[in-house]
């Protein structure tokens, strides 16, 4: 009897130990999970912080207020350069008149200022014959110095800005003629050789046009393919082969799609190089498998009873699918399409082969105009040596991330909105 009691007690203790160990294991597992999530969040925060800290300055630009005499004679002669020089030398009468001295003075403002003055006159001819204050972009070294990126304590030959220019910046500042202003031209211009003038609009429009081609082609084709494979295709060897290939296509490196596009769209069909139409075609090929797979999953998740009920009432299979199955599958289908689009928006490699990683100044006006895309613009700027491009790179990355965030947000919103319970 006593031995029986002893065994019960010892087995009780063993059971307790086991229970304790199990609880500890559970807590440990949860801790690992929390650690993993914290690490991921930490990396995200570091990444975002570094991008934002480098990029936010890209959204502001140092500008100089010049007092320009829009002299009729000079304008008629087309001597905008002389007009600018006059206005600068009025600000700094003691700058000297030698060619080298004049050039140093002109380097205070962006090399594109001459064209800006001409555009101002063309936009508003009433300005001719008046004297107006005009804010013009400062040159890249001035901009970088004003933003505190250049150390004035360095010896003159080691910094990209001369002592004379530093003195002039100080004078401008004292006169309230230099300031950091919102960088409108970043959103209204295409690429430029001068970092202060470089803008992102051409890339945004290029991306938008290419994505438009992608969505118009890949969404209907993808959804219809999914419908056919799910609802109509006979289940045989051929359809299984097609299914396997679609699944494999989703994992094909995107550069391969670029090679295919180069060989087929450019060389065989002779579509224009660097154009949104060709880039969009390649991106649709790349997006199709994603859309097909997610649409098929969404269609399969719709209870078959909807289609059965409709068919029992005398609807055809096509009617049952278009009236009941597709609307019920819409959230999943749309989410898949948007995720596919977001991936296409961030894609550079296939477009490399289509010539869309290009220096594009003009904002593209159509599907056949030369254009580039946002991630390609980021890549191009990241490759440029001028300091001004570094912050432009980060700023463009922020814009790209913003678009991706909006698209993913849209996907979540649509899923919530159209989600129905059955």
């Amino acid at each position, binding site marked *: 009897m006593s031995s029986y009691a002893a065994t019960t007690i010892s087995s009780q203790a063993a059971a307790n130990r086991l229970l304790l160990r199990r609880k500890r294991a559970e807590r440990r597992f949860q801790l690992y999970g929390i650690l993993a999530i914290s690490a991921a969040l930490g990396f995200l925060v570091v990444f975002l912080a570094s991008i934002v800290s480098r990029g936010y300055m890209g959204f502001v630009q140092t500008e100089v207020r010049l007092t320009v005499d829009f002299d009729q004679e000079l304008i008629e002669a087309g001597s905008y350069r002389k007009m600018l020089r006059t206005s600068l030398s009025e600000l700094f009468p003691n700058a000297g008149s030698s060619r080298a001295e004049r050039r140093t003075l002109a380097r205070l403002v962006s090399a594109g200022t001459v064209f800006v003055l001409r555009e101002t006159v063309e936009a508003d001819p009433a300005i001719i014959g008046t004297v107006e204050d005009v804010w013009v972009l400062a040159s890249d070294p001035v901009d970088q110095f004003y933003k505190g990126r250049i150390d004035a304590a360095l010896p003159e030959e080691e910094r990209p800005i001369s002592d004379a220019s530093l003195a002039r910046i100080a004078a401008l500042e004292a006169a309230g003629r230099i300031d950091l202003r919102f960088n409108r031209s970043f959103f209204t211009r295409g690429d430029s050789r001068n970092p202060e003038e470089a803008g992102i609009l051409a890339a945004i429009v290029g991306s938008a046009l290419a994505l438009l081609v992608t969505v118009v082609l890949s969404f209907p084709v993808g959804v219809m393919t999914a419908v056919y494979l799910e609802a109509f295709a006979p289940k045989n060897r051929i359809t299984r082969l097609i299914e396997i290939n679609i699944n494999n296509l989703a994992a094909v490196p995107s550069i391969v799609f670029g090679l295919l596009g180069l060989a087929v769209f450019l060389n065989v069909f002779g579509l224009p190089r660097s154009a949104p139409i060709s880039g969009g075609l390649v991106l649709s090929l790349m997006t199709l498998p994603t859309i097909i797979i997610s649409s098929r999953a969404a269609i399969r998740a719709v209870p078959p*009873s909807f289609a059965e009920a409709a068919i029992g*009432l*005398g609807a055809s299979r096509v009617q049952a699918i278009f009236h009941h199955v597709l609307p019920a599958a819409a959230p999943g289908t749309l989410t898949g399409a948007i995720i596919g689009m977001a991936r296409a928006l961030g894609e550079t490699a296939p477009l490399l082969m289509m010539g869309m990683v290009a220096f594009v100044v003009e904002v593209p006006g159509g599907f056949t105009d030369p254009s580039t895309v946002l991630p390609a613009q980021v890549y191009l700027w990241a490759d440029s040596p001028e300091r001004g491009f570094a912050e432009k790179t980060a700023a463009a990355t922020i814009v790209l991330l913003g678009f991706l965030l909006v698209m993913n947000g849209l996907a979540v919103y649509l899923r919530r909105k159209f989600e129905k319970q059955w």
Partner: protein
Amino acid sequence: MVNVSALSDPQPKLVARAVSVYYGGKQALFDIDLDIMSREVTAFIGPSGCGKSTFLRCFNRMNDLIDDCRSTGSMLLDGSDIAGPDVDVVQLRMRIGMVFQKPNPFPKSVYDNVAYGPRLHGMAPTRGDLDEIVETSLRRAGIWDEVKDRVDQPGTSLSGGQQQRLCIARAIAVRPDVLLMDEPCSALDPIATATIEELIDELKSEYTIIIVTHNMQQAARVSQKTAFLNLGRLIEFDETQKIFTNPSEPSTQDYITGRFG
């Protein structure tokens, strides 16, 4: 119990002759002969997998949806073929409506659920006609008083029993002659089941009803004729009262007394 309608209308509504159904290489139904009389409730009973649902789905050709399913034999509705390859299944399914095991209203409003069939077949040229069809169908299905104030709400927001009656309303909105019901109460609680059974009893004055059921009390309560199927064969088909009190076949006796199945 003497069947009055069978006497006054000796022509059967539905006739099945030598019906066999195969799923791929597997035969599910073996040479079934059966006559269904007009405006009667006929119950199909039998153990799971005996082929009663398969047989039911032959009448409105729902088995066509299953890829490797094929059938032989002849089936007639009012004397005209319904099993042949050139039968218009849309017409057929308008005349033979179906109610499924699990209530399956569309994720749309109550109104749109009922209006779907009439819209599909262009039965209501004006909005007023459609409103009338919807109201009549809901009334006949005995659910109008419960939903008349919320026909714009989703059909899926109703209770299970209401959903099933909505599905019956949806089926009768296309004015069929025959209603097929595939275990219509198996997903419902006893009170909702009683309501549906009462409804079936009322509907039989206008429709020929075939009901598949697992519940033998239900078959006894609602049907005039009962067919007992086992392993794909029709074992016995007779007046319900006779099947449940004095069956001719020993296996029918065994099944209804709960010895197997």
